[in-house]
């Protein structure tokens, strides 16, 4: 027990394969002032090299010879344990992540549940089957007419996580292990806690597999550490904003193949026929609350085909739905600065109204500006709405206009929720696909893709492997 008044010990977030000695005491990451405090062993190029060598050895010993189904079975058990509300690792993680991010525990738990319930064995094997044809080539040579084929994962995967969607970093670990590659993952500064504990559970289930995973923390952009890592790695999975990814890309040797997961935006589209759907308001509110609207799949705008009256009516329903969700999953604790930004946004709308703009149809806010609903006329124009339980409704005469607007930045589009009424709208779906959208789903399900979704439009598992064929 620490003495009264003393700071609680920092949570250690890094994990290394067995046999890697702790060469120094864990230290706090520079610039990180969130609580509870976290610490990690300092990393230098030499230690990166030692960890990489240990990961490769562990993969040779206990990963490359395993059937994929066996790996998926272990990952399935880990996911099921993390779905168990009584699991100590989950409980501690929910509490710590909630404290660090300011989210409610209910909201962190919701995100973890959604990530883990789509990380079960059937999802993993299904994703392999969809991304790799045939997936059995990961286990051995597969006959294909006059030839046979083999699929091989990278020698070592480097993962760089950013952002703070709880439960996202384990995706890189699962994908790497499924293609039988060891992986070293850098956790994000905002949410560095979950992945280490996930690896602890993996170790309890299967120590040999856990030895193929290293979790490390360093300041993003560290030339020495990242240089050493990129020397060792054969494949890079990087999440981050445009500047961070461009910086990393400049330093990544051409021989290292990569998946770049940049920041993206989503939208909801509501066709005229669906505006009156009874569940629509709740579904739109759910999408604005999923992962506290911080995931690339979450909607930044809701386009409603119709007039101002339709949108104003919908805004009322969404406001009530957001309040209802807030009772089950309380909104994040917002800093004075965040609330001030929301006030500044509302004030800009108010000024527009006073200036005689006809674009502003109305605003609604939850207590403490915890949620906002904005009804506007026309395509998005400044001021841009903040994120986090914010539903920014735009009445447009035709949804095709919204699709064309979204299509101006195709590489930054991700998910679209499409409410098209009975029978759907194949033409709109086709237009969205052409515009750059990578996932179309009904409203209410934007934040819950499964493993079979082609993340950023890529068959990620397929991208990670190299094929060899032998022609006879």
């Amino acid at each position, binding site marked *: 027990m620490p003495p009264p008044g003393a700071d609680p010990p920092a949570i250690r977030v890094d994990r290394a394969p067995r046999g890697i000695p702790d060469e120094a005491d864990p230290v706090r990451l520079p610039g990180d002032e969130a609580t509870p405090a976290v610490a990690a062993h300092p990393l230098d190029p030499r230690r990166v090299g030692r960890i990489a060598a240990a990961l490769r050895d562990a993969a040779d010993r206990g990963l490359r010879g395993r059937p994929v189904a066996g790996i998926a079975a272990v990952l399935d058990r880990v996911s099921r344990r993390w779905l168990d509300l009584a699991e100590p690792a989950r409980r501690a993680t929910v509490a710590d992540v909630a404290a660090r991010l300011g989210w409610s525990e209910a909201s962190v738990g919701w995100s973890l549940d959604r990530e883990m319930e789509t990380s079960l064995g059937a999802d993993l094997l299904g994703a392999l089957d969809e991304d790799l044809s045939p997936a059995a080539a990961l286990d051995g040579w597969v006959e294909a007419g006059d030839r046979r084929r083999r699929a091989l994962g990278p020698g070592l995967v480097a993962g760089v996580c950013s952002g703070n969607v709880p439960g996202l970093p384990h995706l890189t670990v699962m994908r790497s292990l499924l293609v039988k590659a060891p992986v070293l993952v850098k956790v994000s500064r905002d949410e560095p806690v979950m992945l280490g504990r996930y690896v602890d559970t993996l170790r309890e289930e299967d120590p040999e597999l856990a030895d193929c995973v290293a979790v490390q923390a360093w300041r993003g952009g560290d030339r020495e550490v990242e240089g050493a890592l990129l020397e060792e790695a054969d494949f890079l999975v990087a999440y981050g904003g445009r500047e961070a990814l461009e910086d990393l890309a400049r330093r990544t040797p051409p021989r290292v193949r990569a998946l770049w997961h940049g920041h993206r935006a989503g939208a909801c589209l509501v066709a005229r026929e669906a505006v009156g759907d009874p569940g629509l308001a709740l579904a739109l509110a759910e999408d604005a609350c999923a992962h506290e609207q911080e995931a690339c799949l979450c909607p930044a705008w809701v386009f409603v085909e119709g007039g101002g009256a339709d949108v104003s009516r919908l805004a009322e329903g969404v406001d009530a739905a957001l309040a209802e969700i807030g009772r089950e999953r309380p909104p994040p604790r917002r800093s004075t600065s965040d609330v*001030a*930004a929301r006030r500044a946004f509302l004030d800009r709308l108010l000024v527009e109204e006073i200036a005689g703009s006809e674009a502003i149809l109305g605003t609604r806010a939850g207590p403490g500006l915890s949620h906002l609903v904005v009804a506007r006329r026309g395509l998005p124009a400044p001021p841009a709405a903040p994120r986090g339980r914010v539903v920014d409704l735009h009445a447009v005469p035709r949804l095709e206009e919204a699709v064309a607007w979204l299509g101006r*930045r195709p590489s930054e589009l991700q998910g679209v929720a499409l409410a098209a009424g009975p029978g759907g709208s194949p033409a709109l779906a086709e237009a969205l696909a052409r515009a750059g959208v990578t996932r179309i789903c009904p409203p209410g399900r934007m934040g819950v893709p499964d493993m079979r979704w082609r993340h950023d439009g890529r068959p990620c598992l397929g991208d990670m492997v190299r094929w060899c064929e032998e022609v006879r």
Partner: protein
Amino acid sequence: MVTRGPTGALAGQIQRVRDAIASGGPADDAAFDALALPLYRALLEEIPAWGRLARARGLPPEAASSWRDVAPIPTDAFRRLDLHAPSAGEVVRTFETSGTTSSQPGRALFDASALALMDLAIDAGARIHLFPDGPVGRVHVLGPSPQAAPGKVMLQGMRRLGESFAGGRVVFHVGPGGLDFPALLGALEVDTREGVPVLLAGASGTFVQLADWMGAQGPSRLPLAPRSRLLDAGGHKGQGRELSRAEFRALMGERFQLPPQRCVNLLGMTELSSQFYEDSLAAAHAGVQGREGFVNPPWTRTRVLDPDTLAEVPDGVPGLLAHLDLASATRPFAVLTTDLGVREGDRFRVTGRARGAEARGCSIGAEAWTDAAARR
């Protein structure tokens, strides 16, 4: 150019404000109310947008019984609306705030009486906080002249300081290639040699650039003549390194051999006519210890508001800063800023700014997206 002066009810209110500032400002809240409330009512007659905003906030102007009931207008309104009382006379100068990618600059419209009031407020504030020990020999400004950058109110104010407190001897150190540090340092050396006390004035970030330049190119130290002082304004705004106040003073002390109390920070806003100073120099002159924070001149008030409810928060609690400035008597004189700060007794501190709609997690910031899409 002959310009028409204020007419009607507003003319009398402007004169009362002028008289009050000239005599040291309203002595207490009752005197402040006696100026602020009639001025508010007179301006609402002429600037209906202000009244609409007050009603939208649930602050009906007819119910205002104290300066605290005057509805502060968001600074954004200056970007979107022409906020000026027509009966004050024609607009002769327009000062602009810095714009952002998503919005045009704000515009503060000045008629002749407004310019005169601003000069009066600048003189009165500077006399207390910047020149308590009397005038200096020259003002050196790290920036272009008001002729070269007519939209920048800060430069206008610095020229006024030179006119009122340095016998008109004011030099703006910008050449065709930007800030002319060698010319500035050369001029300072001459003044030091001749024992001329100077005011060195400019944006906070520019001073850091100058200090870094001196560190790299030399001279790394240039002692100023005794009684010299430094005025920095505007924070860093992405120019150069960000320094704490203590670091800034230590750096300037090292470069110019200035005691810390002779580095005075100023907070000014284009939308207002008055400025808020640190009281370090005034306190030193009075033989007392200065304290951190900005002091309100008697004709101004600053409130700290809860960003959710816009209710005033207690001392020490952070919130949005709202300033009232009677010297801004021909425009909305109560302004809600996006600055965060705290009130501490007779002064306030600025602690940050409202965060924008930037990216979080792996979602792209809607602002970046909307702006970029709009530009295509």
